[in-house]
């Protein structure tokens, strides 16, 4: 999960990392008052779950409280479209109003889990303020890395290695190492999947300052971070995916095809999408219904499909292991009872309790397209879309 920049900065500040003075504003008036308190000038930053704000007009500078109010009026309530959002953009409901900072230099600092070494890795680069993935691709030698051994924690010498490596001058080496140690402690203690300061600025006064901050968190660790879960801003997420999650479907990703797919297992769900493509069609989504031993999740999946105007056929492919096909079958029947299913539905059931599952579908009297295996299912779904109506 993600949090807003202002929340990430608050967490960093509590960890001892210097951040610019600032306040959150939800109204133009608040932006105006905050700018006054900051001395009459401010930077207004749209609080959205997307990068690329600057180029998209989401960061603006106000030279007076009145200008801040006017700029805030133009930002709040709009939707910001960046290269990381879809064309629908993300809503701007809050602004971070910060003191303007005179920047003499910019660094990159970030922590992720390195899958190869299976340890946290801290990365620093003198190419601050840039997209780090671009730097990694084009100038990999500009990124310096240290791995953190959990048995020792992040060490001062590692901080010095990064600080000297990005060319910090001597007076800033120890402060930078201390800042890095703080960021690492925050990363580990909060189960971050990403902790990033980009840019980590060297101000004109010669101090380090986290001018932008990003924290992503491991969804699997939510159980021990209830405070973080409360920070989540669902309005920033795709509403269909949020609805899917709330109905118990953890893994739903919208893509741009026409066949709504309900599959158990992520690998199989991807394979079904691949098969549909091989058969000449396009899946409308990735949906792993998981073990799903209740009918609700099946009904909710169908609800999502029917709410998606691009879906012109539904493909159900369940190979029961932990999941029971009889419950899936009952869910399909229930979905047809509750919803107006206007597109062809192809169903392939195999595995646990499959006889019972097939019996339930048969006895329901529903017009379903039965498939023998998943290839057959993909072919029939593609044919159904091309045919355009229920067979």
């Amino acid at each position: 999960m993600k949090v807003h920049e202002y929340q990430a900065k608050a967490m960093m500040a509590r960890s001892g990392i210097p951040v610019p003075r600032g306040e959150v504003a939800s109204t133009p008036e608040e932006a105006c008052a905050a700018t006054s308190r900051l001395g009459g000038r401010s930077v207004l930053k749209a609080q959205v779950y997307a990068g690329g704000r600057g180029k998209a007009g989401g960061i603006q500078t106000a030279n007076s409280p009145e200008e801040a109010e006017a700029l805030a009026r133009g930002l709040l309530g709009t939707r910001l479209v960046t290269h990381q959002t879809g064309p629908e953009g993300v809503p701007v409901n809050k602004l971070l109003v910060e003191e303007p900072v005179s920047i003499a230099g910019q660094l990159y600092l970030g922590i992720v889990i390195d899958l190869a070494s299976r340890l946290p890795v801290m990365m620093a680069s003198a190419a601050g303020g840039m997209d780090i993935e671009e730097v990694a691709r084009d100038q990999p030698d500009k990124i310096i890395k240290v791995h953190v051994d959990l048995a020792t924690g992040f060490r001062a010498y590692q901080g010095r290695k990064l600080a000297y490596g990005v060319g910090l001058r001597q007076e800033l080496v120890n402060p930078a190492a201390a800042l890095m140690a703080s960021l690492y402690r925050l990363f580990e203690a909060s189960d971050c999947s990403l902790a990033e300061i980009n840019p980590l600025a060297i101000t004109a006064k010669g101090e380090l300052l986290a001018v932008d901050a990003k924290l992503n968190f491991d969804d699997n660790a939510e159980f021990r971070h209830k405070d973080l879960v409360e920070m989540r801003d669902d309005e920033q997420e795709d509403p269909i995916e949020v609805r899917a999650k709330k109905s118990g479907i953890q893994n739903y990703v919208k893509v741009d095809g026409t066949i709504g797919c309900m599959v158990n297992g992520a690998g199989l769900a991807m394979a079904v999408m691949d098969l549909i493509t091989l058969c000449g069609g396009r899946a409308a989504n990735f949906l792993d219904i998981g073990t799903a031993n209740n009918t609700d999740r099946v009904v909710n999946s169908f609800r999502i499909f029917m709410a998606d105007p691009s879906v012109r056929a539904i493909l159900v492919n369940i190979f029961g292991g932990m999941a029971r096909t009889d419950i899936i079958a009952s869910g399909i029947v229930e979905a047809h009872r509750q919803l107006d299913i206007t597109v062809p539905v192809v169903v392939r059931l195999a595995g646990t309790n499959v006889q019972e599952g097939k019996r339930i579908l048969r006895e329901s009297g529903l017009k379903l397209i039965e498939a023998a295996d998943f290839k057959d299912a993909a072919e029939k779904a593609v044919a159904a879309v091309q045919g355009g109506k229920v067979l």
Partner: protein
Amino acid sequence: MSILLDQKTRLLVQGITGGEGSFHAERCLRYGTKVVAGVTPGKGGSQVAGVPVFNTVEQAVAGAGTNASIIFVPAPFAADAILEAADAGLKLVICITEGIPIMDMVRVHRHLDRRTTTLIGPNCPGVISPGKALAGIMSGDIHLPGNVGLVSRSGTLTYESVAQLTKLGIGQTTCVGIGGDPLPGSTFVGILKLFEKDRDTRAVVLIGEIGGTMEQEAAEFIRSGMSKPVVAFVAGATAPPGRRMGHAGAIISGSSGRAEEKMEVLRQAGAFISQSPAGIGEAMKKVMDRLAQ
């Protein structure tokens, strides 16, 4: 022969008194696996399906002579269960649990550095050596004893693949689901090495996914260390980049994670690629027919 699991396996089920734990303990028992003990803290002294339950893994080892464990413990406690099993000296630990925090797995891996435990999973369907023993959640009845090994990052896609093999009369020595997590206990290479050494395994099916570089490492081993033929499929060719597709491991980042690239690297290393997930059985049929000549 087989790898990891056979008639000598004396299986412990951690979390045996939970819904999934008890359900699958019974299924494993019915398949013929020697399920000799369960562990649930606080339930020591009770029984599940005739299997004695202990409070700690150490007690289960002492009391029932277990030598392998399968874990159905909820995610917040699963890392602890893995560490407990390793600490008690078990050489094989299979963790079915999905959703373990990645930092917990970082800790587990750092600890396992100093142990000889083989961890399979987490977030995996487990292991089956058809006709011998089942320590997993797959249906035993879709399997057939035989001479093909299978290793996969996916659960249900493995069932599909096995169903294709069995339908064509191609039996399996052992099928191993290494799981879809970003930090799996065992990798393709580790399992391929075991299959390479296993006398009865004549060919191997490898089912990969987008994300990570495990398939590339497997390709390198297939090229340099594998004498047996490998049929491979990589799921996710049509997945949009940058999105997490269910499995935490299944996210494409950079070109190395793409399905096409992985399949190409595997092909160049000498693996037989099935372009379609529905063609895995047929591809292996050709390989086995050629081996039979």
